[in-house]
């Protein structure tokens, strides 16, 4: 398996994705904004189709368009303060509208199907390099803004009183979400991308740890989900995106069962 160049590229890119997605996902989940991940994943499809139509690298197209949509979500909060969920519908309508229009116009120079379901065959060396650059940059920004991001998620008012420029950081964060989505899309695909951002975090939250440990466990579960999903999908000859999502759910279920068994054993011991 490792003799194939496409598999080397896919594994390399997956390793970066596995670290980046939970680093962003933990803040999305704890801010109760996990649906933003799903909306921006669909938005990235518009960026991909525009990129392909223009003969450019689709990952760059996805990153640019998803960043714009992320910033637009923040901007629209001013106008829909009490109906925040409507913002996601507006962005979804805009991006899916663009994607379908471009796809149906016949102006695409390549197929966009692999981006819907994810594919390991299409990951080029340049893609792997782009994934590495965007992931490394994004993780560095998360490290630099770590305490600000933690506090905006935990207690936004306290963050404002401490002098954090919440608005600005929210804009930066939307670019980080866009980055995580655009680097993951090639392997995982649009349809299950949000599961990569949220499921490892959901699993880690079951362990009842503090923030740092929850983040570390999220990365660990993410690595297990993506690597196992990728390797098994190769042997089963199925799309890696769908299978990785299935592995993520299986790991979550295993952790939930483990938690229940542990609680049962403790109760029996105390009796």
């Amino acid at each position, binding site marked *: 398996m490792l003799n194939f160049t496409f598999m080397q590229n896919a594994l390399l890119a997956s390793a970066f994705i596995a670290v980046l997605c939970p680093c962003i996902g933990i803040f999305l989940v*704890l801010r109760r904004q996990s649906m933003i991940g799903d909306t921006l994943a669909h938005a990235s499809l518009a960026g991909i189709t525009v990129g392909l139509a223009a003969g450019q690298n689709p990952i760059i197209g996805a990153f640019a368009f998803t960043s714009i949509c992320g910033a637009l979500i923040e901007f629209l909060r001013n106008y829909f303060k009490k109906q925040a969920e409507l913002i996601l519908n507006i962005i979804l309508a805009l991006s899916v509208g663009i994607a379908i229009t471009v796809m149906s116009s016949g102006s695409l120079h390549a197929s966009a199907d692999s981006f819907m379901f994810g594919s390991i065959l299409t990951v080029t060396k340049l893609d792997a390099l782009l994934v590495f650059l965007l992931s490394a940059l994004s993780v560095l920004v998360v490290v630099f803004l*770590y*305490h*600000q991001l*933690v*506090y905006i*998620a*935990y*207690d936004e*008012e*306290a*963050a*404002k*009183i*401490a*002098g*954090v420029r919440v608005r600005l950081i929210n804009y930066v964060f939307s670019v980080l979400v866009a980055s995580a989505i655009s680097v993951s899309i090639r392997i995982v695909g649009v349809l299950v991308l949000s599961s990569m951002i949220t499921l490892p975090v959901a699993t880690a*939250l079951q362990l*009842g*740890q*503090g*923030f*740092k440990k*929850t983040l570390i466990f999220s990365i660990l579960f993410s690595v297990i989900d993506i690597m196992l999903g990728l390797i098994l999908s190769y042997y089963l000859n199925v799309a890696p995106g769908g299978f990785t999502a299935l592995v993520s759910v299986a790991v979550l279920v295993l952790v939930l069962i483990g938690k229940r068994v542990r609680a049962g054993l403790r109760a029996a011991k105390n009796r």
Partner: protein
Amino acid sequence: MISIENLFFSYTGAPPYVLSGISLHIRDGEYVSFLGDNGSGKTTLMRLILKLLPPTAGSVSVRAKRIGYVPQKNDYSGAQFPITVFEALNSYRKLLKIREKSAVEKSLDRVGMASFKNSLMGELSGGQSQKILIARALLGDPDLLVLDEPSTGVDVHSQREIYACLRQLNRENGITVLSVEHNLEAAIANSTLIYHLKDGKGHLCSPEQYAEEFLNAKGSARHA
């Protein structure tokens, strides 16, 4: 320390106003409790003082080097957040750019919660989490402490401890305390001044005066 001049506020920017023509001056070292019925504008006034809301008209000027804030517990949705006491305080220390690493332990010591350093915030009782929020507000030695209903959802024993702590911070350390209160007894026992809000307007008086007015009003209501 705090100077409020002819303050008007409404959430829509137009009448009716939540606060209407408020003027209030508070000197350093006072302990002021803000009393009034639900919806009288107590929390809104605090948020204006904290600059979390802009005035519709008038001005709010606060002269403080550092402000410590303890939010209303009902508004505080952080109970399910996976964060330890140390992480919550240490991240806040970093936001305040306090270099001294021991500031977190010192702050926890001041409220008698040092042994809870590694506990998860979500596992603490109402009284314990309130003390942790006070410890967070004390990071960096603030000269102004703003609290929004500090005894809501807290048992009687913890309430006593919290008010004893606030009194000590005010009387011994000279920290100015502004506290939105629904606990009349605690407000009268601890405050140096009481600001009563009704129909968007307020009046300032001593706790003794307030107790007298309150008892008189209660007496007239009983006779009516």
